[in-house]
Structure formats: C-alpha cells, structure tokens
C-alpha cells in the first residue's frame, strides 16, 4: 500500500502545532483529518475509521488524549495511536509504554515528545502502519 492510502487523524488544540503536524504528514504523503478538540475527535471517530491517530494529551481536559486513546481502541482495536505531548519534560512523569501494565492503562501504541523532527514522525508512523 502507498502512503496516500492511509488516513491519519490528528487532534491538537494548538492550531499552529496542528497545522504543522498535518502539513508534515501531508508532505510525507499521508492523507490527514485535523481536529482541534477532544469533542471533534470523538465525532470523527464515530463516523470513520482512520488508519492511525495522533492525539495531543491536554485539550479541553487535562487527560483528553488518554480518553481518546481509550475510546478509539474500544471501537477500533487495530488502529495504532500515538500520544503526543510536551508534558513529560516538565512533570518528570514518563509516559513511555514499556511495561504491559502501562500499555493496558494508557492504550496508546507510542508516546512521542512534541517538537520531534518531521522525518522522525514519519518513521514512527511507518513503523506503526507496517509500511
């Protein structure tokens, strides 16, 4: 399958960051659906099945990203999810998904620091989509 056969759902309440992520994914060749809130993301999930989802952690709620992870995995268990956040650095809380217990709790497949390079994001997405 080509990259353009995949649709990536991106949710982030920072309009600039959202624009840049979607722009980078588009340049890499993917189709994208961009939403600015947890509520919009939920409505998209109810209508379509994306190939992969990238969620910001803090949107309307501090744990919007976790909630979305949970909901999308419940509906489409096979859709890979990336949780993107700038939180780890500041809080010292690590969201890396190493242990099995953490995986079942968070239900994201990858945790990524915001501000990663576009090529790196593309790599991670390809890995998850098994391209």
């Amino acid at each position, binding site marked *: 399958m080509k990259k353009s056969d995949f649709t990536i759902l991106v949710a982030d309440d*920072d*309009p*600039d*960051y959202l624009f*840049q992520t979607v*722009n980078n994914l588009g340049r890499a060749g993917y189709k994208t659906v961009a939403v600015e809130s947890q509520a919009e993301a939920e409505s998209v999930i109810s209508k379509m099945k994306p190939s992969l989802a990238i969620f910001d952690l803090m*949107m*309307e709620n501090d744990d919007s990203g976790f909630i979305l992870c949970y909901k999308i995995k419940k509906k489409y268990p096979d859709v890979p999810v990336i949780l993107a956040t700038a939180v780890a650095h*500041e809080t010292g809380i690590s969201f890396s998904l190493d242990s099995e217990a953490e995986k079942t709790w968070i239900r994201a497949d990858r945790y990524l620091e915001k501000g990663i390079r*576009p090529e790196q994001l593309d790599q991670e997405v390809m890995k998850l989509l098994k391209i």
Partner: protein
Amino acid sequence: MPVLKVLVVDDEPGIRSGVSRILNNFRVAYPFMDEDFTFEVTEAATGEDGITIIDGDKPDIVLLDNKLPGIQGTEVLEYIRNKNYDVVVAMITSYASLDVALKAHKFGATDFVPKPFTPQELKSSIENITKQLYLRRITHKMNEEGRKVRYQFLSVLSHELKAPLNAVEGYLKMMQERQSGDRIEDYSTPIERSLQRIQWMRSLIMDLLDFTKIRLERKEEKIEEVHLKGIAKNAIVTVQPYAIQMEVSINLGLKSDVVIMADPTDMEIIFNNLVSNSVKYNKRGGKVDIVIDEDENEVLLLFADTGIGINESDKENLFSDFVRIKNEKTRNIGGSGLGLSIVKQVVDLYHGSITVESTPEVGTTFKVRLPKKFN
C-alpha cells in the same frame, strides 16, 4: 477521634501498669483542634522488646526508661533517631545524670519525666508532647501541600511557555526547508502566526511578573492615595487599539473622583486585566461599561461587557491559575490563564471581593469591592 499510640518501655511492671491506667482514660483538647486526642498504651519490659514494637506498631509517643536490663534507653533512642521515625520520645528515669540527659537530648528526646511521678505530672507532660506532635505533623502536611501546588504550577507554566516555542520553531523549520516556495510572500501566514505566538508569550511573561510581585512584595510601604479615574483611563488607552480592531466601544462612568488607599500598581493590575478581558471576550461591535462607584467604606468597580459570556460550569474554576475556558469561541483568543487568578489575589490582599455574573451570548459583569482604607 484521633488516638495516639503510646509505648511505655520500663522494666518495672508497676510503672508500666500505672502509665496504662493513667493514660487510657486521659484526653487532651486544644482550642485550635476540632477533636480531642485519646491514648492507647502498649507496654515493653526491655529495650529489645521496645524496638520490636516500634518497628511493627509505629507508636506516636514513646515513654522510655534509661536503665533497662539489656540495651539502655539512650540506645533505643538512637535507634529511633537513625530510623527517622515520626515519634516523640520522653525519658522517664530516676537516674537522670547529666551525661544521660545530654545523650538523650542529642538523640532527640523532647521531655524528661523524673521517676517517681504523680499522675498529674505524667498528664501534663503528655499534654505538652501531644501539642508538639500535632503542630509538627500539621506543619509537615502544609509544607507538603505547598510543595505540591508549586510543583503543579511550574509544570503547567513550562508547558505554557514551551507550546509557543514549538509553534515558532516549526514555522521557522518550514521556512528553512523552503517548504512553500522561495519567496518571502509564500510564508506570510507562518510569519504572522509566529509573531502572534511570540506576543502571547510576552504577555504571559508580563503576567508572571505581576504574579511574583504580588507574592513577594511588602505592601505597607507602597500604599498611597490612588485616583481610580486615572488608572481606568490608562487601562482603556492600553486596550484601545485592540478595541478599535474589534469595534468595541468602552464607556467609563463615574460619579465623582473616587480615591482609594492602595498600591497604584495593584489597581493597574485589576483594571488592566478586567478591561482587557471585557474587550477580548466581546463580540464584534459590542460594548464595555466600566463603572467606578463608592459608599462610605468601600469602592465598587463594575466591568460589564456584551460578550460571549461564561457557562455556569466554567465559573467554578475561573479564578484559578492557568484556567482558560476552552471552546469554539475562545480558541483564537490568546491568554495566559493567569489574569483572573492575579486579579483575585490582589483583591484578596486588600480584603475585598470579586464576583462574576454571566449569561452565555449576552455578556459578563465582574464586580469588585475594595475597602477604601488599606489594613
């Protein structure tokens, strides 16, 4: 009712049972506590037994004889000290030489009850110890909570400071890689957005400075007569360019020249924040009414707008740090989430009050009351 666990370590059975008898029916009350303390006594005949109980049962208070059959009382004390247990120790001893007393003191014994003691002597010593224990634990708890709040504040703050940097960095990379073309005009949106994010970041930093100022400054020296009309006019002038852009008209109504005893900077903080909010969260073509009024003791300030309003559920946290109401209508409005928290802190500092009334889609009114005299 809180129960404190008391361990008495003494090789004389009479002393042990005496302590049990006296303390099991004893209660300690202080005017500053909601509930009385009562006591539950366990006994140990040797230092070794005492240590086993201390490790297992974690008593709050230990009454410790020094002269024991095996290890000595001071050794038990040293053990407790090394383990860093949260326990208060009082020595009960009839052979209180200076040497023992010094050693006991060094290892953290808080009291000496010389044997033989009367029930009253024991009770007054326990009363004292209980108070110390209570205050120590309360202080500890408050410090912990303070630390947690500061930590939370800092983590949200660094998130808020990092987000605009990420955004600007992303746009600069787009330009560096010439993603949209070779001409500068191809990048007008990224440039515009970057400037906007930098401007918001700057206002966050300004808010932060206000924030630290309120917390650190000594007020008394800065109190002077402040004419609120001037402060209000300055705030209006500051926000005017934005108001013109939003087509919002600002009206200032005041009955007379209202004067308050205050730090002028604090009054600026109140006016600047509330006036700029009433423009920021207004609708195109809306209006803002500012009223300055007074009665005998108080100044009353009104900031009424015809803006987007605030939902009932969002009102609850409105004055907390970093709270921004996030919805479709506010998403393009920049803000640090600190403004109202700062205003609230200033108002509290003056023992005033701030309230909000709001109807979504109709408008919001903030009412501030401040005593005219600073105390």
